């Protein structure tokens, strides 16, 4: 309310306005203030809203993808697969066993079948039940009552399928006959149809056909229409085809539920320990990634459009039973952080990417901190103020605004020259090259932050040091630099965090195409000169994957990891600043 007095100030003392009455001017000022306040508030709300949307969209997809559905299989190291000749088992022999036919089919799929059966699930029956239910549902939908009993009475699903198929054929024959000129043949076909329906036990349908048959001679076209309107033919054929399904459920179908391709780890384990042959050891295998979309409830599997690609109702029924008995369970996917990159989302990981990013940060830290701080101290403490240093200063600011892809082009150009010189391929896509390119990008940020930090040190400290006979170098290193250190550190961490998230320059120097990158060696063992990946490029690769769960799950998971790293770095920066900040 102190404003009010000033608002009333210009008024002439003669009018003696009360302090409790707001003049028009005061009201206008309050209005303007309120508008500004609510605009600001609105802007902040908008920003928070978008931030919320962003975080929600990433976390809601990425976080569940970090929990993986795994099938716990009692893996039987089958001597017949691993030691086909029956003699003494040797490491070479095991190492020669094919990963696909030997380990994936021979061990995993058959062990899966055994595990499921040991858990008391009858695979054939479970699968048959699904199709019978579907057949019954199809017939019930068409109004064919008593279908369940009919199918049960027929015995084996195949027999029931035959019976229903024949009945369906009879309907089709009747329709064909009605369409022809021969009325007697049509009448016979309708007769045969009624018999077939009654024989099948569909008495209600038989009597309905009888009604249609009565008017068929007068108006065959109407009879055809009536027959088609019943929908019996399609229902019977659908039911028959459902009932024929179980016969197709073989090892390949069963094996497709889990992902057991390229289990080098299992082969290596057997090679290392031949005593495993003939034993049974529990082993986890990830559930096929498109199946996880059903398990997570994303796809209901109720009809063709919501069916996980490559699967049928029978798979879903079996998977449901496996979940019930606990063979399939959901667990945090720690392997995501250590596995190599892969096209297959089940085993894809960010191990090399995490290491590659860490190594690049290391290179960036060394290069940009060293050169950035050196440049800043020179410019701030020693350089004469003339046109040349002004020019440098302006261009450092310009450099900070250069799009990162330009630095990538520069890196690519350097790489090109190195290839010409003959050792380019050894540096393409390595953490060293990536780090150097990112350092160039980070350098201006660090120079600007460092200079700001050096400028913020009060001149009185420099005067004090110079006044007692410290040289410029002593002043800079004993006083100015230590006092500016928190600011420099903060700037550096923010620069590094920025570099951590940078994709574009890395795409151009071959980091994105090194999909086969292995876990890196220690930096002192040449890890900096190995093909590597980085977090942002691996996100880029995941986002281009053909499987939706990778595109919309793992990519976000990797983003979450990256964001957590960034938040951790920023938190560190803030903590350091709070901890070491000095006030004068």
């Amino acid at each position, binding site marked *: 309310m102190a404003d009010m007095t000033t608002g009333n100030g210009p008024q002439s003392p003669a009018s003696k306005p009360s302090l409790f009455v707001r003049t028009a001017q005061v009201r206008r000022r309050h209005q303007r203030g309120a508008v500004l306040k609510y605009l600001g508030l609105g802007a902040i709300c908008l920003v928070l809203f978008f931030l919320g949307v962003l975080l929600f969209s990433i976390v809601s997809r990425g976080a569940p993808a970090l929990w993986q559905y795994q099938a716990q299989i009692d893996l039987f190291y089958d001597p017949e697969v691993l030691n086909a000749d029956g003699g003494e088992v040797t490491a070479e022999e095991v190492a020669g066993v094919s990963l696909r036919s030997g380990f994936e089919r021979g061990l995993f799929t058959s062990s899966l079948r055994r595990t499921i059966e040991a858990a008391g699930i009858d695979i054939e029956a479970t699968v048959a039940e699904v199709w019978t239910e579907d057949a019954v549902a199809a017939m019930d939908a068409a109004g064919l009552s008593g279908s369940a009993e009919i199918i049960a009475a027929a015995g084996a699903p195949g027999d029931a399928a035959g019976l229903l198929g024949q009945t369906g054929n009879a309907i089709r024959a009747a329709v064909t006959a009605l369409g022809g000129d021969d009325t007697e043949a049509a009448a016979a076909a309708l007769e045969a149809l009624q018999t077939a329906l009654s024989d099948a036990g569909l008495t209600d349908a038989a009597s309905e056909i009888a009604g249609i048959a009565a008017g068929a001679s007068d108006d065959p076209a109407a009879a055809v229409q009536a027959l088609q309107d019943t929908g019996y033919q399609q229902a019977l054929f659908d039911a028959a085809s459902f009932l024929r399904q179980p016969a197709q459920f073989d090892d390949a179908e069963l094996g497709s539920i889990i992902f057991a391709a390229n289990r080098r780890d299992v082969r290596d384990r057997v090679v290392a320990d031949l005593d495993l042959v003939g034993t049974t050891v529990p082993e986890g295998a990830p559930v096929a990634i498109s199946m996880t979309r059903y398990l997570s409830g994303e796809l209901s599997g109720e009809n063709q459009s919501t069916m996980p690609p490559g699967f049928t109702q029978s798979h879903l029924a079996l998977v449901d039973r496996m979940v019930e008995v606990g063979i399939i369970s959901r667990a945090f996917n720690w392997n995501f952080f250590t596995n190599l990159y892969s096209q297959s989302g089940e085993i894809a990981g960010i191990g090399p990417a995490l290491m590659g990013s860490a190594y690049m940060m290391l290179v960036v830290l060394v290069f940009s901190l060293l050169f950035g701080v050196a440049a800043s101290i020179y410019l701030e403490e020693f350089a004469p103020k003339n046109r040349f240093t002004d020019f440098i200063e302006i261009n450092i600011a310009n450099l900070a605004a250069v799009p990162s892809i330009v630095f990538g082009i520069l890196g690519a150009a350097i790489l090109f020259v190195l290839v010409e010189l003959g050792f380019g391929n050894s540096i393409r896509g390595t953490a060293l090259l990536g780090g150097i390119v990112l350092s160039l990008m980070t350098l201006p940020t660090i120079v600007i932050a460092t200079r700001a930090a050096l400028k913020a040190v009060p001149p009185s*400290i420099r005067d*004090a040091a*110079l006044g007692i006979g*410290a040289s410029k170098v002593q002043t800079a290193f004993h006083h100015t630099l230590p006092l500016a250190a928190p600011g420099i550190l903060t700037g550096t961490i923010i620069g590094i965090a920025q570099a951590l998230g940078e994709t574009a320059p890395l795409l151009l120097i071959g980091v994105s195409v090194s999909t086969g990158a292995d876990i890196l060696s220690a930096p002192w063992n040449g890890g900096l000169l190995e093909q590597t990946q980085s977090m942002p490029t691996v996100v880029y690769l995941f986002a281009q994957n053909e499987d939706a769960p990778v595109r919309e799950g793992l990519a976000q998971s990797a983003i979450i990891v990256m964001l957590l790293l960034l938040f951790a770095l920023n938190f560190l920066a803030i903590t350091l600043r709070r901890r070491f900040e000095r006030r004068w």
Partner: protein
Amino acid sequence: MNDMSTAQAAVGADQIKFSARNCQVYYGENHAIKDVDVDINDKMVTAFIGPSGCGKSTFLRCLNRMNDTIDIARIEGDIRLDGEDIYDKRVDPVQLRAKVGMVFQKPNPFPKSIFDNVAYGPRIHGLAKDRAGLEEIVETSLRKAALWEEVKDRLAAPGTGLSGGQQQRLCIARAVATSPEVLLMDEPCSALDPIATSQVEDLIDQLREQYSVVIVTHSMQQASRVSQKTAFFHLGNLVEFGDTSQIFTNPKDERTESYITGRIG
């Protein structure tokens, strides 16, 4: 005190520490100091007084080449310390500043411990052979600055945690720790309260026994209390320079008279 000052002035008159002749200072285009000739005696307090912007601080900063740190500053003329031209090419300004210590207007202790504040100068100039020697220098310096009794139990405490007056005395201790021959003080009491001011003034009077002290001050009372010689600056000119008692009782120049009687400034 005036009697004593006159006596001291008589003793120190032939011991000229600093002599400036025809000294000019330019800040870019601005001619800040014009034709200043002054002799500063050893073991004596010389006060520079004058209105704001008259150039007294600028001239003070010429005496230890602190103006070198200002890019646009240009100094002409002849300033000699013990007969040696301090602007000679062979002179290292850093070496000069070790001999000519400085205390600034605002207390500016380093954000370090009290001990390290005082020990910094001796350390970088290699004045102490070992830790014990350094501790001795620190104690002596703090005693000279009349601060020892107050801080001897907390030498490891940060210097910035002291009160304003204590901080300024710490800065004085820091300046005397490098064993300078001259102490320049740029309005050392302007940021202090009257009690701290009086403590610092007493201190200056004691320091006179060992050092040549040059003090810039806005306060004419202070100049008359602590100094034996006074120089009055006005608009970059040295208007009058003489014994303090003479300047304040019998100024020769009418500008000086106007200033000390409060008509200008």
